[in-house]
């Protein structure tokens, strides 16, 4: 049996509040999921709601600013995923 994921639609209480705060963050349209919830990678952390602001707070300091350019940052992320055999 795998680990539970609680999506935005099912979330209540602390998790829902955390998700709502993440949705309020400025996000380039390219990263906004069409399903209208929060990106799946945030939902992947749903078993530990308080971890979400820690992880995605760190993301903001690395993915949203330079000195590396946006394409360079995307290259780093994509290559890291590729090396880790991960499609996400």
């Amino acid at each position, binding site marked *: *049996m*795998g*680990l*539970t*994921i609680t999506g935005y639609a099912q979330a209540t209480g602390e998790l829902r509040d955390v998700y709502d705060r993440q949705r309020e963050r400025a996000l380039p349209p390219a990263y906004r*999921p*069409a*399903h209208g919830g929060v*990106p*799946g*990678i945030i*939902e*992947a*952390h749903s*078993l*530990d709601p*308080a*971890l979400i602001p*820690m*992880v995605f*707070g*760190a*993301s*903001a*300091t*690395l*993915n949203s*600013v*330079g*000195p*590396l350019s946006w394409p*360079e*940052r995307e*290259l*780093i*992320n994509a*290559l*890291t*995923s*590729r*090396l*880790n*055999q*991960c*499609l*996400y």
Partner: protein
Amino acid sequence: MIDTPRAPITVTPRIGMLAELVIKVTEAPWSLSRTDRDRAHRSGLSDDDILQAIALSSYFGHLNRVADAVAVPLDYAVQRMPPPTDPNVPALAPATVAVTGRPALELVRRPPTAAALTAWRTYMFDRDAPLTRRSRTVIARWVALWLGDGGISAPADLTVNPIDDALRELAELVTLAPWQLGDQSFTRLRGAGFDDAQLFDVVAVASSTGVFSRITVALGSLARSGA
């Protein structure tokens, strides 16, 4: 979207060097050396560029590990065949050295990132549930050992206890072969009574401390003379 023939991609020395850094950070952060830093400078990368590349790649490795552990579905319809990922790729090799000493670059050159990682680290260790503090320490020490983080004590006689051994087994998969994670990876600890929140905590502690140790090791290795 129409799939057009791809234009030839020109890989500049700068981009090629960024890719080389990412490969080493992901597969063997202890293998970086002063030579890599010098080559990066010659390729047009500044120390701040190098620092961001190391920190970002280490960070993204956490997202990969959590995505694999919970098997999160993709957000988007994939328009073309995704690149094949192979769960049979062998595990990464554990570190052959323990990196200590003054790093070539300090994370405090990037204050917001340093502050965010400190807050994250405090959150991971400064609580008693779902895992005990002792279990968190056990996991963090194993991860540090596998990644070559000589600043953290090596684990001592920790496999005597079957629970500790099962924690080590899952943490090892998360750290060295996250692409092999699957439902079966949790069977042993579930059998010992672990619930989903505790199992996720094992993944989160292993993956988070992996980010911290990976950055520490990569920045420390850049000060070492190369092979």
